[in-house]
């Protein structure tokens, strides 16, 4: 058994988690840049964070046979100050040359503000200019439906093809629109505020297994770095085939991520 967790924030997790993930069959992860739980005071703080994502975490993951890839951006929460956000965006291109950087992410909206939207559009343009994949964060709770639609409109106004964009944190009220518009959809398995493995299995049963993946988004909050293997177990408990389980937890993320020439799995 092997799987990919395509969205997890390992900078917030312990080395024990890498060990448990490896023991559970994880062979690769991708880690989007995100909000660290506090607002950073300077673009230099992001420079250091991007170095952590591109230099330190791949080495820590490799100790357990896990390949580590990453996505870079200024996250939506800290993007509400456009001048600050532009200082951060300016340092991203030099990191896009790194071997493990797959694209721009996780960009999106947090409170659905005009400032956030401006910076979202500028980061979509950055992905266009540098021919990068895009990983999208959609807002939480009551803000998700409105924010997801605003984000999809902004993406559709760009020249980035929808098949090169994954919209994450979908739930039952957003997944159909995301898939219908040609994007990939990600389901985040989270103990309290997002999806359970059971609901993720329900979504796959209702909306199919094309262009969809699941991830743990494990971070500094209450979250579960083993959420993906738990979802695999849930699907198997219901009698779904090993082929379907592998498709949504390995083949699909590999297909989407392989659109970046940098995503190559060792020994595969």
């Amino acid at each position: 058994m092997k799987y990919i967790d395509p969205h997890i924030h390992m900078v917030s997790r312990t080395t024990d988690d890498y060990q448990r993930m490896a023991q559970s069959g994880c062979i690769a992860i991708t880690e989007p840049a995100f909000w660290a739980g506090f607002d950073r005071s300077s673009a230099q703080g992001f420079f250091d964070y991007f170095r952590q994502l591109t230099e330190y975490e791949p080495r820590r993951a490799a100790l357990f046979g896990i390949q580590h890839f990453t996505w870079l951006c200024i996250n939506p929460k800290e993007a509400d100050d456009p001048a600050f956000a532009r200082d951060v965006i300016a340092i991203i291109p030099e990191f896009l040359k790194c071997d493990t950087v797959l694209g721009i992410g996780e960009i999106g909206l947090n409170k659905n503000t005009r400032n956030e939207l401006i910076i979202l559009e500028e980061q979509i343009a950055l992905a266009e200019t540098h021919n990068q994949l895009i990983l999208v964060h959609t807002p939480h709770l009551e803000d998700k439906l409105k924010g997801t639609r605003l984000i999809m409109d902004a993406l559709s106004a760009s020249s980035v093809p929808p098949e090169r964009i994954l919209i994450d944190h979908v739930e039952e009220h957003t997944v159909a629109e995301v898939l219908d518009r040609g994007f990939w959809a990600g389901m985040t398995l989270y103990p309290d505020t997002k999806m359970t493995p059971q609901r993720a299995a329900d979504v796959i049963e209702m909306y199919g297994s094309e262009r969809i993946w699941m991830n743990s988004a494990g971070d500094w909050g209450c979250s579960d770095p083993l959420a993906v293997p738990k979802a695999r177990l849930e699907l198997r408990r219901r009698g779904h085939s090993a082929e379907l389980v592998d498709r949504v937890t390995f083949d699909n993320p590999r297909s989407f991520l392989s659109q970046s020439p940098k995503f190559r799995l060792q020994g595969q």
Partner: protein
Amino acid sequence: MKQVSGTCPLSRQQVIQQYFLEHRARLLDVAAFLDRLDRSSDSGEPDFREIALRQALTVLADDQPHRTARILHLLSDHTTDLPQSAHGMKGALGAVRLGEGAAT
């Protein structure tokens, strides 16, 4: 909404066997939460989240498909205006006040 009947491979009896106890416990959690609200130390006006939760409970019992999506819609902001900045705004609270973007 999409027609989804027959998409779960388990029989009705198997779904009950596999999930009943877990969801019995969750239902009792909701009941206990409502009891706790009734027992609260003041008799203040219901918070908008309590009102939204009670509306959602009617969806649970209406015997129509797509309850999860419909509850998520009910709890979503349906406004179309965009504030300039998030400065001074609170984080997401999980529901919307009537008259401030709640579904009608």
